[in-house]
């Protein structure tokens, strides 16, 4: 790899971030750049292939995954602001590309893939100076971060670096929020029951905000909270609502909001 002065990385924003949460990607890239690392955002990036892969459509997943490969030619880390998409590259691509002509390239990309918080903590050893007001937050550990990528410890350690942030613990923290990608569309009522229990556990705490390292979970939990809050507003129950935020945005906002 390069020397300290020339450190560079590829940033794979993910399809969800690209269209729905670009500020998450931007915050992540700014955090990395701020630490002196050159960030490359390949223009031709699309999707890791996970939605089709988890729906059984492996040929389609393979085509989409393959189209992503030319984005990362240099032998430098690929940073992903989502444990789920990073897990797809790192742990599922080897299965998806097994016995394909480009299997070795897939394995190479898998070996260079790092989830954002993992990179910030393990590679960059980031130290955070909190400039924000006191706030209580709950951390939602995504299933991919916990069990697939095993990087849930890093979001915890990052948030705990922030002097004015208090982390409160919700019940059944490690239980799935019910997103599961296409699962939430295919089994909406099971997924709905799961997310409702998740939001119940979160609103029962004194947290003002829910922080996570996966936009999928946040879209699910945040969407459910919004839906519940809008129906509460109709019944004139005006309480400050619990909101959701990705760790990258949260860290940037707390430490560099003025930049």
């Amino acid at each position, binding site marked *: 790899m390069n020397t300290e002065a020339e450190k560079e990385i590829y940033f794979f924003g993910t399809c969800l971030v*690209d269209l729905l949460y670009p500020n998450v990607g931007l915050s992540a890239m700014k955090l990395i750049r701020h630490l002196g690392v050159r960030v490359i955002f390949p223009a031709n990036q699309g999707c890791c292939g996970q939605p089709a892969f988890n729906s059984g459509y492996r040929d389609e997943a393979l085509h989409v995954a393959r189209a992503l490969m030319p984005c990362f030619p240099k032998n430098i880390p690929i940073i992903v602001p989502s444990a789920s998409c990073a897990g797809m590259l790192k742990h599922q691509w080897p299965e998806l590309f097994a016995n394909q002509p480009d299997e070795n390239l897939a394995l190479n990309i898998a070996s260079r893939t790092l989830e954002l918080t993992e990179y910030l903590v393990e590679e960059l050893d980031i130290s955070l100076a909190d400039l924000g007001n006191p706030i209580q937050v709950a951390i939602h550990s995504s299933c991919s971060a916990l*069990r697939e990528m095993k990087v849930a410890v890093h979001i915890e350690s990052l948030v705990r670096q922030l002097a004015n942030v208090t982390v409160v613990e919700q019940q059944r923290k490690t239980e799935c929020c019910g997103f599961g990608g296409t699962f939430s569309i295919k089994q909406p009522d099971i997924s709905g029951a799961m*997310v409702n229990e998740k939001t119940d556990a979160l609103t029962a705490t004194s947290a003002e905000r829910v922080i996570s390292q996966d936009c999928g979970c946040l879209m699910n939990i945040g969407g459910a909270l919004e839906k519940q809050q809008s129906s509460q507003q109709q019944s004139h129950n005006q309480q400050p609502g619990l909101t959701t935020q990705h760790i990258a945005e949260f860290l940037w906002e707390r430490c560099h909001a003025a930049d």
Partner: protein
Amino acid sequence: MQQTEAFRQRIHKALNNQQVRHNIRSVMNALTLKRAAQFPDSKQLELYRENASSIRQHALANQADLLELLEQNLMANGIQVHWAETAEQANEIVFSILKAAGARNVVKGKSMVTEEIGLNQYLESRNIDILESDLGEFIIQLAHEPPSHIVVPAIHKNRAEVAELFHKHFPELCYTEDIDELTLMARQILREKFAAADAGISGVNFAVAETGTLCLVENEGNGRLSTTAPDLHIAVTGIEKVVEKLSDVPQLLNMLTKSATGQPITTYFNMISKPRQPGEKDGPRYVHLVLLDNGRSRIRLDSALLDTLRCIRCGSCINHCPVYVQLGGHAYGTTYPGPIGSVLEPQLLGIDKIGTLTSACSLCGACGEACPVKIPLPKLINHLRAEAVSNRYDDDKVPGKGSMRSFNQALTWKTWQLIYANPWLYRLFSLLATRLRFLTPHRMGGWSKYRTIPRPARQSLQQIARQHGFANE
């Protein structure tokens, strides 16, 4: 699709039953906590899992030889061995043994494999009086319900429901909701039946090839009574339950009881090796083992799905499943519910019959993490999803392969592929999505029943990255 609609209705019914959901949640909470307490050291747990997993893998890899050795040793011990390729054959064998012995009254220890083959119904329709002697099984037999969990079969019922059930069936006993008293009642009823039974039927947890020993794990002593009090004992088990050595058993047993109920050891552990010998005062005079295939040989030949057969039926995957905890076992509509059910049942019954179960999974990975023999359950579920919609035909694969492929869904994914595998097309798509964001619908199927719909941003990250001076290489 018929199976999908039927599953949807069962899900609807399950989610609307708050009482059952509450019962299941509280028990699953307790079971997962008890399990965790048995494994305080995560490194040690990993070693145990690795060890148990390799014992099971070794047994599967050498299954044919081990089964042959098992048969030899069982026969040498005086236990008669029968082979059944199908559920129907297994039922016929059990019935013919009972008939030859003139047995009418049968007591049963808890056994999932006999649920799998529908043995009770088969024997009842042939005028055999069959009584479940495990307390949970006894309760659901009274209620005419199938088990809702493979280890704790009546877990969907609370004490009031059990009290009512007992009162209905045994009006001569006084009504009580006290668990100890209810247990005592069941005990009194069952004791009489044990004494009068002509035959006992049980499952097997481990069948040891080296010694010809049938191991049976239980907590209530009903397994021991069922297999020792009557003159005739018939054990039924899947062929995958064979293990090589007696020294494999303590390691598997350790993982089984801790993972299943969080017990360091169960109250009873039976090792059945012989019928009653001359001079012995108790034990059955005749012991039979029925070895059931019922699709297992096909699974064993499928390298992608072979891991399914590692299962030791502890139920830990079920206890940790966030979908099971919402639905309970009956919604699955199969003998085995939860993650292991979603993997095993489509392979046993066919994807065309019950492949829809693979959709009831968010791939959260909790099951795979909790499995004491390291079955990669999420990976297997995902593999079966691919089998379900595959358009490649080949023989000797999962029955019903490709049967869930629909034209509309395939077209949707092809369209998705077209957009995301072509950068210029994706750029056009994202430009349209961001410009036309005001057209985002307010309702979107089941998603918006529980959540708001996310709206595309004004600009995609692609566009914003350049404005902030990030390089494109």
